[in-house]
């Protein structure tokens, strides 16, 4: 079973090939949907089978991953690495199934499948139906490559692939002005991060002579001092690699300062936002950090990771509370929750970070799809100020959305509580300040999410009468995925019950432990039961407080009254938050403009100097040389030729005089010849030469 692992990424890629190339414009909507969803569904089932097979296998028992190598992709031969040794640098096209990739596999295929199903309904009346599913399948293939790769380069292929698909799908409505811009912004911002990622890859190759996970992590485990040696920029090897890779993660997972693309990415179709910008692609950075935990455990760059995560979390949460676009709220929420994941990874709780990744995938996807359902019913309206009271018209959407909201707020026994609590507990043990930041963010999260809920579903409907007419519950093809994801949002937390003292039922942590390298001095945090319970209580209280604040301001059919009153009172603050701290404007004024003007400068240089002076100059020079050459040819070469002719003519004139026909002259010449011969003879005779 697990030997069919390679099919998991390949099946969606086949779907992309079929819908995108082979059967383009040849299939009806039903066929396209069946093909795309079917292949992803099949991949999902295969994933389950493979995971099950792996868990029953000896590799799992030995805490080893199952590796499946397809072929040697880049056999590049001997490579000299730092420290003078030589390695045979070969990159394989291989897949690895271990606990970490199993979790990711499960999340990606399962959530991905239901989002595919949902898309069938959501994109029902859109143009480019086949193109959408082509890109979506392509994305799935790339994401699966990313999580299943057994080396950093295959991960990087997937990394770039999902970046590409993100661009393609954000800019899906290419006939409008904004989506292509948003797509470019996403791609370019990603690329900036990827520069860091690539630097990390180079450093890995330079030090280990390989990019294989198992080889690198085993080498680190055996000799941690190897990567603690000083390297560049005042960092150790591990520090440099960790920082470089994290820069990539910042771009991909929308952390400060490269978070700016995610809110604008909402220009794409909502299922895309759910899949790519909530559940899967943006989590790639977290996955990468978790995968590289052997490196991060040995460097203080981890602390930077945690700080950035925490800062991003609270930063995004403050912005979310002032957004009116339903998808923008969810986007900033995603940024914030990703910050949580990096906070966890930064303090060494890699398992918890992955746990939150999983639960977040469920409830965030649920929330996005629910918002999609709302937008669909509202005929494309996304401004919450024009919504309201939708719970009567869209009961299933409301119920599932409510579940998602409670989950993200961190109310037990739903999923969000367990993962978020795990993060806060780990943060508390390591870095109390960051714990406090996380706690405040949790309160803000609950608050802005319930604000969204109340503004959208409660109170009076504030939209137009046309929209009111069209309000309807979404079809089953859209509501069923909502229900499935809601179930996930409720139950997925139960694999990570927190350890209470000696009672350790955190199944997920155990499951993931083989992946965490045993380096450094990460001791097990065994906080006392009392502390654990106290922390849990505090986080729940904060969440509930947030909910109550929201209820007070926006609940109880209040509508926008409080919103407007607050906006009036804290106008400046509101402006700051609504304009997202003007980060985009700052970037535009500095980096964007700087890039444009240097590009223009370079272009001017190119056209004036390179083209003008060099190219045109060389043209003039060439023309001059060719003129000279022409002269030379005409006068000298031709002159030589003419000279030869002239010589011939002159010479022949003198020789022609021999051909007079005058016999006596011939006789004279003969006599002359005789004289000459005789002269020779005499000379030889007199000279004493033998004759």
């Amino acid at each position, binding site marked *: 079973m697990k030997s069919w692992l390679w099919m998991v990424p390949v099946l969606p890629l086949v779907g992309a090939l079929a819908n995108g190339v082979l059967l383009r414009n040849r299939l009806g909507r039903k066929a396209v949907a069946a093909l795309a969803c079917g292949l992803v569904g099949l991949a999902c089932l295969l994933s389950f089978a493979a995971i099950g097979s792996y868990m029953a296998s000896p590799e799992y028992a030995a805490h080893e991953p199952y590796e499946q190598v397809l072929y040697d992709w880049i056999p590049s031969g001997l490579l000299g690495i730092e420290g003078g040794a030589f390695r045979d640098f070969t990159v394989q096209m291989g897949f690895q199934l271990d606990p970490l990739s199993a979790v990711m596999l499960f999340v990606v295929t399962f959530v991905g499948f239901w989002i595919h199903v949902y898309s069938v309904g959501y994109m029902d009346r859109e143009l480019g139906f086949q193109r959408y599913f082509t890109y979506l399948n392509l994305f799935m293939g790339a994401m699966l490559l990313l999580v299943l790769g057994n080396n950093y380069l295959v991960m990087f292929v997937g990394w770039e692939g999902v970046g590409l698909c993100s661009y393609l799908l954000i800019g899906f409505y290419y006939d409008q002005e904004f989506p292509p811009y948003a797509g470019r912004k996403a791609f370019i911002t990603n690329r900036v991060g990827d520069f860091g990622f690539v630097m990390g890859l180079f450093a890995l190759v330079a030090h280990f002579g390989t990019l294989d996970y198992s080889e690198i992590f085993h080498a680190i485990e055996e000799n941690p001092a190897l990567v603690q040696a000083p390297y560049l920029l005042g960092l150790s090897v591990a520090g440099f690699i960790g920082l470089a890779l994290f820069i990539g993660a910042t771009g991909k997972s929308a952390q400060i300062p490269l978070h700016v693309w995610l809110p604008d990415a909402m220009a794409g179709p909502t299922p895309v936002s759910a899949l790519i910008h909530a559940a899967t692609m943006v989590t790639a950075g977290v996955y990468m950090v978790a995968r590289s935990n052997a490196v991060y455990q040995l460097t203080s760059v981890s602390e930077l990771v945690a700080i950035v995560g925490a800062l991003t979390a609270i930063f995004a949460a403050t912005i979310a509370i002032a957004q009116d676009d339903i998808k923008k709220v969810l986007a900033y929420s995603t940024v914030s929750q990703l910050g949580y994941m990096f906070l966890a990874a930064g303090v060494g709780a890699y398992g918890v970070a992955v746990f939150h990744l999983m639960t977040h995938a469920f409830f965030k996807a649920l929330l996005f799809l629910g918002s999609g359902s709302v937008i669909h019913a509202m005929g494309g309206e996304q401004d919450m100020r024009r919504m309201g009271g939708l719970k009567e018209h869209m009961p299933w959407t409301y119920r599932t959305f409510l579940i998602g909201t409670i989950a993200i707020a961190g109310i037990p026994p739903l999923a969000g509580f367990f993962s978020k609590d795990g993060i806060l507990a780990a943060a508390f043990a390591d870095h109390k300040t960051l714990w406090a930041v996380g706690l405040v963010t949790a309160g803000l999260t609950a608050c802005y999410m319930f604000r969204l809920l109340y503004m959208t579903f409660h109170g009076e409907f504030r939209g137009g009468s046309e929209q009111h007419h069209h309000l309807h519950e979404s079809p089953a093809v859209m509501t069923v995925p909502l229900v499935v994801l809601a179930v996930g949002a409720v139950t997925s937390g139960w694999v990570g019950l927190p350890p209470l003292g000696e009672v350790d039922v955190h199944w997920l942590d155990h499951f993931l432990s083989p992946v965490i390298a045993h380096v450094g001095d990460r001791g097990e945090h065994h906080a006392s039961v009392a502390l654990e319970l106290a922390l849990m209580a505090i986080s729940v209280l904060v969440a509930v407080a947030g909910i109550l604040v929201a209820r007070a301001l926006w609940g109880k059919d209040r509508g926008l009254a409080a919103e407007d009153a607050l906006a009036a009172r804290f106008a400046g603050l509101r402006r700051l938050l609504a304009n997202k701290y003007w980060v985009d404007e700052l970037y535009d004024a500095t980096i964007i403009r700087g890039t444009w003007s240097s590009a223009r400068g370079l272009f001017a240089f190119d056209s004036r100097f390179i083209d003008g002076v060099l190219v045109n100059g060389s043209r003039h020079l060439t023309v001059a040389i060719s003129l000279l050459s022409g002269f030379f040819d005409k006068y000298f070469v031709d002159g030589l030729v003419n000279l030869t002719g002239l010589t011939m003519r002159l010479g022949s004139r003198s020789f022609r005089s021999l051909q007079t026909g*005058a016999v*006596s*002259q011939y006789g*004279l010449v003969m*006599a*002359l010849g*005789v*004289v000459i011969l*005789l*002269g020779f*003879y*005499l000379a030889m*005779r007199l000279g004493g030469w033998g004759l």
Partner: protein
Amino acid sequence: MEAVTAWGPAILFYLFAAIAVVAALAVITLRNPMYGAIALLTCFLAVAVLFFLRHAEFLGVVQIFVYGGGIMVLFLFVIMLVNLHRLHESRIFAAHGPMAFVIALLLMGLLVLVVAPLRFPEPDPSPAGFVAADGALAGNAEAVAWQLYRGYLLPFEIVSLFLLVAMIGAVVLGRRD
């Protein structure tokens, strides 16, 4: 008497050599070809004498007969045939005359230079072979005939053929048609 015997041949030689040279010069310088022919004849006769001095009696006589009596007559006939004794060319020497004389002088100089230093051993003053035929003493004519019709018979016949051809050729060339 010894003086005559001693100096006789030398005087004869120098005298007739001089005559020959002068006559030859006359041949090439006289304008009138008739006079030139006479001069040529003189030259031949002088050379015949020189032949006698070298015990080539038969050949000397042949020279007189053939050259003088035959060839010169032929020349004179032709001269008179084309009325050349009355026709004179405007210039006697060709345009390249001076150059030719220079070359000729060069040639003479070279030849003399080559020949004059040659020294030969004393020849037999009266070679027996010149007067013997069939072992017995006879005369130069017999000796020549004895050699000619025996050892040199083939060339003899060829030459006679040649003369025949020349005769026919001359007839053909001279035909008026």
